[in-house]
């Protein structure tokens, strides 16, 4: 008997045939990452949780449209991005998408497991992220926290790689100015 790990592609194929158990297993693998992505661009736990549920429901309904299971992650995050920005538009329909700021960014995101890391650094990071524009913050989240490549980020955000790099590097210049000195002082 040969054992092998069940890959996402296996689960996606089974879920596309209507096997809900396979989809639930797939959800359990991705829900934390999607939730934290949404949490960092919405800065609100309730919104992030509601959106995460919507994202996985929509993903299940459209799973058969996913031709390449290997592209599941960018495809899923594309849905998440669209859901989040759809929510932003509903709340402030008159505002330009680029001007939309998540409601709780000024207060910063409350960090879970704060006993592990110094609160000063956590607050500084949350504050620095909150001062970025939504586009810059999302680029940092997708790159640093979610580990996507530029091409995948371009697919998720539906914009050229050059735009992604521009947003990310501008954000990094701002973050470097604020965070590098704190880290260099050896807070952690």
């Amino acid at each position, binding site marked *: 008997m040969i054992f092998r790990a069940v890959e996402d592609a296996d689960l996606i194929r089974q879920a596309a045939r209507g096997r*809900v158990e396979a989809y639930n297993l797939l959800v359990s693998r991705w829900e934390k990452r999607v*939730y934290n992505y949404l949490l960092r661009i919405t800065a609100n736990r309730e919104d992030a949780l509601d959106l995460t549920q919507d994202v996985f429901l929509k993903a299940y309904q459209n799973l058969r*449209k996913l031709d390449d299971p290997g592209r599941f992650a960018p495809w899923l995050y594309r849905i998440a991005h669209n859901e989040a920005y759809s929510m932003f538009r509903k709340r402030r329909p008159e505002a330009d998408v680029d001007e939309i700021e998540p409601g709780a960014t000024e207060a910063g995101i409350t960090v879970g497991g704060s006993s592990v890391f110094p609160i000063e650094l956590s607050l500084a990071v949350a504050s620095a992220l909150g001062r970025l524009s939504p586009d810059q913050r999302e680029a940092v989240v997708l790159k640093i*926290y979610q580990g996507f490549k530029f091409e995948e980020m371009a697919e998720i955000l539906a914009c050229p790689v050059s735009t992604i790099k521009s947003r*990310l590097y501008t954000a990094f210049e701002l973050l470097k100015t604020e965070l590098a000195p704190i880290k260099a002082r050896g807070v952690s």
Partner: protein
Amino acid sequence: MSCSPFDLRDYFLRELTDPQQRQVEAHVKTCQPCREEIDRLEATEAALVSLRDEEIPQRIAFVSDQVFEPSPWRRWLAGFWGSAARLGFASAAMLSAAIVVYALRPAPIQELPKAPQQIVQTVSGGDIQARIDAAVARAVAEVDAHEAEKNKQLVADLENARKRLLLAAAELDLSEMRGRRDRVLAANYGGPHEDGDRK
């Protein structure tokens, strides 16, 4: 301005190809400013990742509702129409099949359309006149023949009438002669002879 052969940020974010990564790595080892820039980027990243992921407050799971669960056929159809690749493949397959069927079908017998026979006759004015004359002559002959027939019939009828008149006159003469004979006989012999009347 960096003196690195490639963008230090691309190197730091591991977006360069392997040879490019090695090239920048070798450069950074010997270049103090670039080394310091990489240190700052690493410090920034370390600060960012200190913000750990949170646990999701509520696990997400779905249950299958048999009432609203689409049938396998409907799922397949939805997947088919929802997939541009599958639709494209089906279209290409149908097109290929049509081409193959067209190529393999028996060649039809070439029936060339018959060109209408073009009869060109050159008719002179004299011929036309001759034809008209012939047609007129035929028509006159037919009328003459018809008239002759009628005349012939009329003559025959007259002849018959004449014969009937002659016959009637002869009968009248005969009757008058018999009257005279009867009167003579009656005057001479006292009455007509029955046998003589019958002869």
